[in-house]
């Protein structure tokens, strides 16, 4: 047997072939299609009507409202209403206001290693953390998938990103990603498949792996894969999902790679990315004098349960510096409930944080809540493009949730390791 990559194995299976070769264009059958309220019903339904067809398989479609939640504008409320009606009419699985799609989809057991999945959102590579080949598409393309159950794909080469050693306390998956954006560039992924591997990746929890896979989008990759292992299987078991037979879903030794990069996790420091690109990342110490107005803990890459727990460890018994507004938008209702049951939400409330809905919030910038003119924000989100989260004159720094929390307390961009207590939290 020829040595093949994980991406090739999944795409070969989905396209009904023995083997596929990078660069060839094949048609694959999708195992699952995820859509949200922005690119979903309001955009795909008119196309389905125009084509005069129904869904290829309603049991393989999951709809999640997150971009316009909580519907705080007239147009946003109207879009949510349309979304809810469509879910009823089309009889698809629907999660309404339960959290950000990339977090809700796996948390409700919809993803399984080896699946071939499309998502109507650019951060869909998140599914790669579970060993699924998942990638983002626009609404017209999604309508085509919903109509036919198929999509064309140019078989990607694999860029292997290996992380040796183990992360130090206070350093997270977000820091790994920000430094990758700086080192490889915003198109370093070249719309190929990125695969993360190595000791540091094996040691990461599923929620941290999701952050890595998610931000493969920031490298311009199509997918961000991590081969499934016991951690994946245990996590899926715990949420009532199905890991299936995941053994063998890995890149074979000797498979042809497009590139192989090696990074050392042990020496990585917390990072901060200056406005207006994740590729502007540098060790946080280089930004130490930057004063901030807003600290935002949110998004699919910065406000999952584990992020909230780590942030609370820093914020406990502390308050944001005078004049700093702290906002927390837990990534899903389940994660927020778990955090509440462990006293984590109470820490945020004691610190005077504004708790926002379980949704994309300011990260997507679609609602009425946006950063004002000239505001400097440090954010646990994935993108800091000019004008994305608010006024074109606002300035967004990206960092890990821990760094955002430390910065909120300091009133300037700060190294979280200076705010951590003795227990390593």
């Amino acid at each position, binding site marked *: 047997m020829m040595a093949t990559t994980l991406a090739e194995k999944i795409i070969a299976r989905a396209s009904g072939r023995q083997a596929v070769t990078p660069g060839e264009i094949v048609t694959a059958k999708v195992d699952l299609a995820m859509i949200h309220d922005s690119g979903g019903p309001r955009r795909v339904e008119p196309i389905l009507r125009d084509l005069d067809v129904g869904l290829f398989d309603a049991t393989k479609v999951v709809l999640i409202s997150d971009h316009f939640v909580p519907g705080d504008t007239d147009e946003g409320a109207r879009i949510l209403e349309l979304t809810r009606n469509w879910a009823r009419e089309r009889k698809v699985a629907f999660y309404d206001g339960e959290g950000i799609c990339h977090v809700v989809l796996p948390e409700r057991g919809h993803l399984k290693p080896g699946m071939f999945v499309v998502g109507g959102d650019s951060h*869909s590579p998140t599914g790669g953390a579970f060993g699924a080949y998942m990638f983002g598409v626009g609404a017209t393309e999604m309508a085509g998938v919903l109509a036919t159950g198929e999509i064309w794909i140019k078989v990607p080469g694999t860029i292997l990103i290996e992380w040796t050693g183990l992360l130090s306390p206070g350093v997270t998956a977000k820091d790994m990603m920000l430094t990758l954006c700086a080192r490889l560039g915003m198109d370093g992924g070249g719309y190929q498949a990125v695969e993360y591997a190595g000791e540091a990746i094996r040691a990461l929890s599923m929620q941290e792996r999701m952050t890595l896979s998610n931000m493969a989008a920031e490298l311009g990759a199509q997918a961000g894969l991590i081969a499934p292992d016991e951690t994946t299987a245990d996590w899926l078991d715990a949420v009532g999902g199905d890991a299936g037979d995941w053994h063998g879903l890995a890149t074979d030794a000797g498979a042809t790679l497009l590139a192989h990069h090696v990074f050392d996790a042990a020496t990585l420091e917390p990072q901060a990315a200056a406005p207006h690109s994740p590729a502007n990342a540098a060790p946080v110490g280089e930004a130490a004098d930057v004063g901030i107005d807003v600290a935002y803990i949110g998004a699919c890459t910065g406000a999952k349960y584990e992020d909230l727990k780590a942030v609370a460890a820093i914020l406990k018994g502390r308050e944001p510096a005078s004049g700093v507004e702290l906002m927390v938008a837990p990534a899903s209702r389940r994660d927020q409930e778990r955090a509440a049951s462990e006293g984590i939400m109470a820490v945020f409330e004691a610190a005077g944080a504004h708790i926002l809905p379980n949704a994309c919030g300011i990260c*997507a910038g679609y609602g009425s809540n946006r950063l004002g003119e000239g505001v400097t924000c440090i954010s646990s989100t994935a993108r800091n493009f*000019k004008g994305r989260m608010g006024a074109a004159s606002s300035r967004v720094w990206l960092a890990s949730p821990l760094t955002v929390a430390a910065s909120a307390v300091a009133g300037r961009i700060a190294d979280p390791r200076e705010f951590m207590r003795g227990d390593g939290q």
Partner: protein
Amino acid sequence: MTARAFVLGDDVDTDQIAPGQYMAGGIEALARHVLESQRPDFVQTVKPGDVVVAGRNFGMGSSREQAAEALKLLGIAGVVARSFAGIFYRNAINLGLPVLIADDLSAIADGDAVNLDVTGARLRLTDKNIDIALEPLPDNLKAMLADGGLVPHLKKRFAAERKEHL
């Protein structure tokens, strides 16, 4: 009417092309704000037939296809860039907006008179008398673009399939 080139840099993102705060409304309203944070004069000065010329990774970021749709609505004949972000590239073809690649676009200056030949994959700088060869599209995308995008392409396919079943 002479078509002109609008020359942009690398990494033009979809938040600049289609700002999120206008995403709840219709495409006509959104199209009035295309590129406003980077090039405030764009919407006022762009004319049907004009060509956007960009560096690397044009259209990076969000999957919102309104970025391609709004450019098309403004009459842009096509985008020529050194490279495109993957999702934007697919969205553009799906919506019938030509997107073509060439490695060296240094001969083109902002405001140059241009003539884009999509089927022949050439960009002609008419005043400078320079012809730039563009990479030809793969056959499947050529066919989709010729049909006007994914929806007309699928209509054609479905019609053919129905005929077969008769």
